[in-house]
């Protein structure tokens, strides 16, 4: 499979997923993992989790995970194809809506869309947690760090980038150099 075939395949993975990014890009991570790891075998589950970690310490939209995966799988062409795939279709959608939107006319539909998609988004984010947790290396210590972080971020106002750095340092110390 040459680079262009892979880039096309990446666009084929992320393009349809673009329409499923409801409640933020995190929702599609579970399905992206299934396609990248289980269907196409472009990387292992652990490598996928590595990339997820990098995407969390990079500023900007979290969906840039697609860009990073695209680059890992097929270089520049892959990064471009994955980025256009994940952002492009819905960009045209919101552009079209912004174009025809008249205030208050679509208010009920907006509310129905938002409340109706909420439980779907919640289920998808839970699925993302489950799938990433399954692919996470580092044993029970890593899982304990994950649960502790959930509690810390919910009950304190700690900076999340610092927390991620602390988690990395802690696991390195536990496992030794």
């Amino acid at each position: 499979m040459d680079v262009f075939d892979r880039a096309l395949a990446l666009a084929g993975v992320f393009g349809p997923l673009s329409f499923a990014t409801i409640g933020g890009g995190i929702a599609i991570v579970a399905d992206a993992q299934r396609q990248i790891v289980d269907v196409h075998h472009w990387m292992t589950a652990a490598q996928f989790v590595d990339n997820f970690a990098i995407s969390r310490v990079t500023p900007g939209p979290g969906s840039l995970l697609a860009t990073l995966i695209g680059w890992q799988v097929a270089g520049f062409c892959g990064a471009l194809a994955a980025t256009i795939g994940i952002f492009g279709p819905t960009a045209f959608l919101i552009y079209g809506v912004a174009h025809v939107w008249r205030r208050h006319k679509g208010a009920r539909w907006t509310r129905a869309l938002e409340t109706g998609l909420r439980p779907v988004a919640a289920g998808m984010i839970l699925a993302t947690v489950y799938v990433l947790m399954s692919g996470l290396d580092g044993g029970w210590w890593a899982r304990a760090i994950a649960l502790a972080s959930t509690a810390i971020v919910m009950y304190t106002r700690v900076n999340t980038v610092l927390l991620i750095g602390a988690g990395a340092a802690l696991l390195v110390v536990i496992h030794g150099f």
Partner: protein
Amino acid sequence: MSSAVHNPASPSPPRIVEIFNAFALVGLTSFGGGLSGRMLQDFVQQRHWIGEDDFFEGLALAQALPGVNVTNLAIWIGFRLRGWQGAAAGFTGIVMPAAMLIVLLGALFTALIRFPVTHVALAGAAAVAIGLTLSMAITAVKRLRNSFFRYVVMAATFATVALLKWPLVWVVLVGGGLSVGVEYWRMRNTTTATPD
């Protein structure tokens, strides 16, 4: 006068390059979500590029429609400022510089991955990131406000995506379509009871 260009404070809308730079700055200096709060502060309260009502209308739409909320919002604000050129500037501004940065970081970590400690450190970072995602999930579950129907939709989505590994697009189309239809029907019932 075009209905697209809506500018409450300054007599002339910002230039294309200003729009690009403003969104690039937001994209490159925001970590771990919370970008919409940052944009409210930047574009409504400091630059006065867009009114508060316009902003929240755009935010509601950005959240309701599929697509990453912040890129949707960037397109909405950009379009309000300068039509399609503004939308393109907002979109590329928030995505492109950050995309280049993530590729650089990816290259850096790829170069370092031959040291085993790199993978351990990334696993530790990922563990925290997954923990943060779980807290997002808990917040999302709380927002369902104890509705049995919504819990069923959520559980069905989780089971089909995580356990049965059905393709996500179909789950969203069928489950989401059904759920949105039910909410729309519920709202119709309440609006006929209390006419506005």
